[in-house]
């Protein structure tokens, strides 16, 4: 993400950061009687503590729900959605995906070079990474049907080499971290030619993988993008169950057993959470201040970002496994650590989705008109593009998204604990370490989205 994109992304934090820059947020409390307005100021630490307290209090509230049958009813509630036998929707989706893919490549290489009017840039970052990802957790995952590389792989031969079990999801973990690194440090959001080249590179790698190991295996195991959308799709109300579409309450699909299977998949969930955080973290002034001594001491700036990315991922993963260890002791259970880690990883996806929404909803709305204009005239440069100005209260939507993500996570973790332990008190106790981590994480992410944005240092 580069300066220009950050500027647009930044409006969300902007509304807040303007007020929070000096350590206080101002809110307006209108008085009906007097018709006057007075400003109340809330210091940052209090804003953060309130967010943390909201999460802690919701855990206490959730712990009042002790009726196993009621929890099961909430989680099993759903209606099957009728799907016709027609193959037309699937074909149509593949065609749309393929058309989008070709458009991005053609416009990327041949279209206007100003990023704000280039359809390839807008389609990838606004339409796909912000818009489609949001629909994946708000409505349902459509990437499985749209994925143009999957469509291309259909017509390619396959060597069907056995995919090594030991490798599992690790390539997708590494791939996701690499994508985040690329997205943060490279001018991919500014330079359509570079973006198109990067997509060609990624496509080459993906198609080669699909040819060697088989299309289904590659996209199920190793492809990071497919996995991101699949995991986000689990938060959504509409999903596949036993071969048919089913409407459920949002997030309830996360309680499906074996959703996350193995240490590799736990690592992927944590990487997804860390990636969304890292994206916001690097543009805070604190990141610059923290890393300044390192760069002054001679650390090459090119190394700084991958190192920070890897170190933060290690820290997040370490904290998660530490919490798992504590939880195992608090619950006095004989379930092993890996089993507990798998059980309690899916709720993190709701948190990641909430944070993604906080980060990208504003960005999407601001640039959606530009995307529309570029879609109408992809090859000519319209010069100025329309931009949506969100109202002032919109900053609150981001905060609400972060908090709601945590609330869903708390409920899902509550249900997972009830499922794992026969004693309900034991289930509550097993949650303590995770709640502590969640409170800490809510405060961190609220702090990140409330900081002013500064340009990426040293790039």
């Amino acid at each position: 993400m580069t300066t220009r994109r950050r500027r647009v992304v930044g409006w969300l934090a902007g509304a807040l950061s303007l007020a929070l820059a000096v350590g206080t947020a101002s809110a307006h409390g209108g008085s009906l009687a007097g018709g006057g307005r007075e400003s109340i100021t809330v210091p940052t630490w209090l804003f953060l503590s309130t967010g943390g307290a909201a999460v802690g209090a919701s855990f206490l509230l959730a712990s009042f729900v002790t009726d196993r049958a009621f929890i099961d009813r909430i989680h099993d509630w759903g209606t099957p959605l009728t799907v016709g036998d027609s193959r037309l929707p699937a074909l149509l989706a593949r065609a749309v995906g393929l058309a989008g893919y070709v458009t991005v490549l053609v416009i990327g290489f041949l279209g206007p070079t100003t990023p704000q009017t280039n359809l390839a840039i807008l389609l990838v970052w606004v339409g796909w990474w912000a818009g489609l990802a949001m629909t994946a957790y708000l409505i349902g995952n459509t990437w499985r049907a749209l994925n143009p590389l999957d469509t291309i792989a259909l017509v390619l031969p396959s060597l069907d080499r056995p995919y090594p079990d030991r490798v599992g999801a690790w390539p997708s973990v590494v791939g996701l971290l690499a994508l985040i690194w690329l997205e943060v440090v490279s001018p991919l959001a500014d330079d359509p030619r570079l973006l198109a080249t990067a997509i060609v590179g990624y496509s080459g790698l993906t198609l080669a993988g699909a040819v060697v190991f088989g299309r289904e295996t590659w996209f199920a195991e190793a492809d990071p993008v497919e996995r991101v959308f699949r995991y986000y799709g689990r938060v959504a109300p509409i999903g596949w169950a036993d071969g048919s579409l089913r409407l459920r309450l949002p997030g309830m699909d996360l309680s499906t057993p074996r959703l996350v299977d193995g240490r590799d998949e736990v690592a992927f969930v944590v990487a997804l959470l860390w990636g969304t955080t890292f994206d916001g973290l690097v543009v805070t002034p604190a990141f610059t201040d923290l890393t300044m001594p390192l760069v002054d001491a001679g650390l090459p700036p090119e190394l700084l970002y991958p190192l920070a990315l890897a170190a933060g991922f290690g820290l997040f993963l370490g904290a998660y496994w530490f919490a798992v260890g504590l939880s195992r002791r608090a619950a006095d259970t004989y379930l092993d650590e890996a089993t507990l880690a798998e059980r309690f990883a899916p709720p993190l996806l709701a948190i990641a989705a909430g944070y993604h929404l906080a980060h990208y909803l504003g960005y999407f709305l601001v640039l959606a008109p530009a995307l529309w204009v570029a879609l109408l005239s992809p090859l000519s440069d319209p010069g100025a593009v329309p931009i949506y100005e969100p109202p002032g209260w919109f900053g609150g939507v981001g905060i609400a998204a972060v908090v709601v993500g945590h609330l869903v996570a708390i409920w899902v973790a509550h249900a997972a604990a009830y499922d794992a332990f026969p004693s309900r008190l034991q289930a509550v106790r097993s949650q303590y370490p995770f709640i502590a981590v969640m409170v800490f994480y809510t405060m961190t992410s609220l702090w990140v989205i409330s900081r002013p944005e500064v340009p990426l240092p040293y790039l």
Partner: protein
Amino acid sequence: MTDDYDVPEDAEGYECRYCGRPFAREEWLALHRGLDHPAQLDDGEVAAFRAAHDDEESALGNFRLRALGALVLVYFCLLMIYALV
């Protein structure tokens, strides 16, 4: 689906005779049998489940009181802080 267990060597464990899952406490085993294998229990196991369930209910009552206390505390602490800041 199978879970993996990790029982410490010197620990006393209570193993479920239907599925083999080990528990650290006897009442948890009783609860587990009632929840996961309700159709297979003999009379003694049913009685053990009921007893464990009743104990759990009263312990939960205690817990609810403490949780309510904590909630009220959090609420009033924040209220006071907001009033003072």
